[in-house]
């Protein structure tokens, strides 16, 4: 994003994949269009979803997330979804099994990250090891979790700067038994593609169920408060006290416009000429909310 101000920052789901072949079935499923404004990463989007291909590795993943979230700062009801393939340390797990990660162990640093597990989901659950270098099958006994990838911890590290832990989801599809060098990109696309309907149905339902709490003051009320504060030349501390009293009054009684109007109409209050008059007027104003 070379200084381009995004027109529409109202994305709801931010998806990150490491590889284009992981992204391909998602792009196709949602009919995402390439966003040519980004030169460092491949980015695809529609009105609701934006997807970035980070390239493999923990550091690349973190940079990719930071890049996109800096360009489009998420709001409290947006979600981050990391989808990708992973290796499994247990050959009894069929390839194509979908996991939601409840714990991410960063092999390079020994640090654990925990996404919140608040939402019901139809997938298997496991911890995952993220490592900068691929973990090979002969070292599978050394990894403390069932699954292994090369991005999840980087996504978490960067994601937590913009999201809360309940907004981030790490979905991994088993593609191999820690021989990732042998996987063909078409197989990766197929593994992701066959699970995309279920994953997207779930994440969309989640997103639809989230509601943003609306601000306490309406734009008109904000305007009235600003006007009174200006006319009375209130100090910052007085403005804070006024806002707190107005907020409480509104939450208790539903409306405070009448109180402010009646105050403004009182002829003996305005204009305030000195500190003394301001203090007196402010006390009078606060009594309106008592």
């Amino acid at each position, binding site marked *: 994003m070379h200084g381009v101000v995004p027109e529409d920052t109202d994305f709801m789901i931010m998806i990150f994949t490491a590889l284009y072949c992981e992204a391909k079935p998602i792009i196709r499923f949602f009919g995402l269009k390439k966003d040519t404004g980004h030169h460092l990463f491949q980015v695809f989007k529609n009105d609701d979803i934006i997807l970035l291909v980070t390239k493999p590795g923990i550091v690349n993943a973190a940079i990719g997330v930071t890049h996109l979230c800096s360009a489009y700062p998420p709001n409290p*009801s947006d979600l981050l979804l990391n989808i990708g393939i992973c290796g499994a340390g247990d050959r009894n797990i069929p390839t194509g099994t979908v996991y939601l990660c409840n714990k991410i162990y960063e092999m390079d640093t020994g640090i654990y990250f925990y996404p919140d597990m*608040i*939402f019901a989901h139809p997938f298997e659950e496991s911890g995952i090891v993220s490592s900068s270098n691929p973990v090979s099958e002969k070292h599978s006994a050394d990894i403390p979790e069932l699954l292994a990838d090369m991005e999840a911890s980087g996504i978490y590290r960067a994601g*937590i700067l913009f999201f*809360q832990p*309940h907004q981030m989801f790490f979905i991994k599809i088993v593609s191999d038994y820690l021989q990732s060098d042998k996987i063909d990109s078409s197989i990766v696309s197929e593994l992701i593609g066959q699970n995309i309907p279920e994953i997207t149905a779930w994440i969309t339902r989640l997103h639809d169920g989230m509601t943003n*709490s609306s601000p306490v003051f309406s734009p008109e009320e904000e305007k009235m408060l600003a006007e009174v504060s200006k006319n009375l030349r209130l100090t910052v501390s007085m403005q804070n006290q006024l806002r707190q009293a107005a907020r*409480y009054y509104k*939450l*208790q009684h539903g409306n405070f416009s009448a109180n402010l109007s009646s105050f403004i109409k009182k002829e003996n209050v305005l204009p305030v000429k000195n500190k003394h008059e301001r203090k007196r007027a402010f006390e009078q104003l606060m009594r309106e909310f008592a």
Partner: protein
Amino acid sequence: MNSLCVNLLNPPFSHIYIEKGVVDHPNTVKILSRFPKSTQVIIKHYKDIFNRSRQNYPVQKQSQNLIIAEKRPPFVYRGSPLCQNFGNDNFYYANTVINCVYNCEYCYLQGMYPSANIVVFVNLDDIFGDVRKLLKSDPVYLCISYDTDLLALEGFLGFSEKWFEFARFYPHLTVELRTKSANLNSLEKLTPQENVILAWTLSCEYVWEKYEHGTPSPMQRLNCIEKALAKGFQIRLCFDPVIYIKDWEDEYGRLIEKVFRELPAGKIKDVSIGGFRIPCDYLKDMRKNNPNSAIINYPFNAVNDVYSYPPDLSDRMNSYMLGLIRKYMPEEKIFTWK
């Protein structure tokens, strides 16, 4: 984002995080046996999950998970000056559990802790050990249910019972267990003791209905207290916090009348009265988390980093409550927090 569609959520305790070091602790084993369907996640230290940055307390509250951990020293803390000590000098509190299954809008825990998940410390014996040490020099007054509601968790935890058993051997120890629960089954398993006080917080109907989400109604609490009195438990009534609401005099007037109609005043150990008060830092976080809550958005007065009602209102509320309660209880048994 503060509210979520209920059917999207995992049930409470769907996930239990267990510190590696206490996986085999008998209390852990017992707790886990009560939640066979929960997903168990092994962790190194409870703070790795409890103290994560940017957690959303109200969201987590809607689907609380459990963290089983080992309490490290200090095991026992000096009582806060914001809490009533009922005339006891050596006032301490101990946390065997952090956070609560109830969801009172005014609860300070939302401002005190970064997470709404419930932490259970299974190594009660270490805490008992520390209390024993304190008792060697002086009598001890110990509150064990401040940062939680221990009796509400008794069904799967059994910690109240363990405290009762412990206190039996130490006559110089006085234990206060504060609760809003109406857990009759748990009471059945406890044996009344002189030095263990069950302290019930009582609120008027309006406060209960509007702000004490998930708690038993005042009537249910009263029924439970009545049974507890009949069994011979030491009972304290806490009208604390008294909350300023519209028609507060009528509301609290009705409450006091109902309380002393239902309960034999002569059997009650003592009563406390206290207006809502909270450290400024906690309230700031609570307001951020819950901007639409009227009760925590009251324009409180800040004195010494503590928010409370303006002095004239505080005085009016205290003397009103005192006046009502004095009709039923001798003044020396009424403790007012000022």
